């Protein structure tokens, strides 16, 4: 089924895009991540211009996270106070991200920077997740039962607030900084940032596990909304037809994924996610260290 994308300026096979959306949707339903880290590179690989891919993927993540947020908020799995602070940081961060994007574009290294970010972040997080999942599967992770609270640096920050949902009494500066960092990455990489938020919430802020996924999705929802608006006003690269196709797949995929998530073993799931994350990182790594297919890049003047 041929569909013409008016902003990307080319014709694609609609079914392939819907299938791609479904794949990321299943991931987001299973793991509570937006799936942007997979959509953006795959769209680029398929031939969609990089800016259009990043902008449209962030809009798609909005849709994929809505149903998750509703589901989690029903069972009180969202810490709204924490989420609001992070969203504030996320909006500031996406502003910084836009500045950085323009800076790296002006020196002509934006594609290299994005590639490197993917390799470093996905690579390290994928390895961490794989290690942890394997340990738990082998039953050697029991020693970690005495779970560490938040990172010592977090405790040293001033002005403490009570975050009832997360069971924390910490400075709001900590989630604000986390939000800023994720906002920057959202703008640069075209990702929701769930794969960074979730570990950061668990291991840096020390939030209780039952609100982590819900709050992460809540944050992703609003940050991707802000990013979509930012892209629509500045790069004008959101392709609404592409978004609709991706959503068609991802919203149904997300529902299927969340059904699976109830039945499957969480450690096994995490191992699968780790494998996917590492695969994407490895593909990006090849692009960075081996002679790429495309030596030349065109920038309009």
């Amino acid at each position: 089924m041929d569909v013409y994308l008016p902003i990307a300026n080319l014709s694609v096979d609609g079914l392939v895009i819907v299938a791609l959306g479904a794949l990321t949707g299943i991931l987001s339903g299973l793991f509570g991540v937006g799936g942007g880290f997979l959509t953006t590179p795959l769209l680029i690989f398929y031939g969609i211009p990089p800016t259009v891919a990043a902008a449209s993927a962030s809009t798609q993540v909005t849709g994929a996270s809505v149903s998750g947020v509703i589901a989690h908020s029903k069972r009180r799995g969202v810490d709204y106070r924490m989420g609001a602070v992070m969203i504030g940081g996320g909006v500031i961060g996406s502003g910084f991200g836009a500045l950085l994007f323009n800076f790296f574009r002006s020196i002509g290294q934006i594609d290299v920077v994005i590639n490197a970010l993917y390799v470093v972040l996905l690579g390290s997080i994928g390895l961490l997740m794989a290690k942890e999942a394997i340990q738990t599967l082998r039953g050697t992770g029991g020693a970690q039962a005495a779970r560490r609270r938040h990172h010592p640096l977090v405790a040293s920050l001033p002005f403490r607030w009570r975050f009832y949902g997360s069971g924390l009494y910490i400075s709001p500066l900590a989630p604000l900084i986390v939000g800023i960092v994720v906002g920057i990455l959202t703008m640069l990489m075209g990702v929701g940032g769930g794969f960074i938020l979730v570990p950061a919430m668990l291991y840096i802020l020390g939030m209780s596990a039952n609100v982590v996924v819900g709050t992460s999705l809540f944050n992703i929802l609003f940050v991707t909304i802000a990013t979509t608006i930012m892209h629509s006003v500045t790069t004008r690269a959101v392709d609404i037809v592409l978004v609709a196709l991706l959503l068609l797949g991802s919203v149904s995929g997300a529902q299927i994924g969340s059904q699976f998530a109830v039945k499957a073993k969480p450690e096994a799931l995490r191992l699968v996610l780790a494998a996917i994350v590492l695969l994407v990182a490895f593909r990006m790594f090849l692009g960075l260290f081996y002679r790429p297919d495309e030596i030349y890049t065109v920038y309009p003047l």
Partner: protein
Amino acid sequence: MLLVAAFFLMGQRDPVLVPEISQHEVQVRQGFVGQELLLFGAVLDPAGRAGQDYDIVVVLKGPSEPIRLREKERFIGVWANAESSDFRSVPSYFAVASSRPITEIVDDKTAAIYEFGTDYIQLSPSGSINPEEQRRFAAGLVDLKRRLGLYREDFGGVQISESVLYQARIELPSNVTTGTYTAETFAVTRGRVIASAVSEVEVKKVGFERFVEDSANEWGLAYGLIAVLLSVGMGWGAGRLFARL
């Protein structure tokens, strides 16, 4: 005026080209997967001679744009952008078709003057890098565009019948830029261009596609809000739908 023209035509005793294109307007709408254009026409010889051999070359060019081309180089193991070169007029689309291989029709110099081939596109490089580097960059650009299907050569793609009628099919892929395209037709004999004619093709978005593009460019904020609404609406709707199943 007519007299002058008639005198001029008779005086030079060179043939006249009457070109036509299957369509002067290509509409880019939903389901657009590219368009094949048929460039055809006749070569009229005022002297009434028939059977003289002509070669026909057609060149179809899309609107030009200035670009900066960056080249990746290995830098401490990492492939990073290193040097760059600016080109002031890069056609967004370029196709050439001819009745025989170009090298058999004209010499290099003539081919370069009339841009008979992707190697001869006048890209107007600017900046002060040396000619050899410029050639390398130009070759890289042409190769990139060729693999996108935007630059193409079809030597032998022009059919001539009875030394009078000619026709060539040129494919516009779906990723073409909108704008005014110019189709130039050349009649060549003994290495010399003896007649040429120009016609135009308008490639434009129409209907919903046009509306989407205009909205995105003119009402960015509203466009973004609608995209968000669509996204949230579909996410929420799917949640409700699956909850009932």
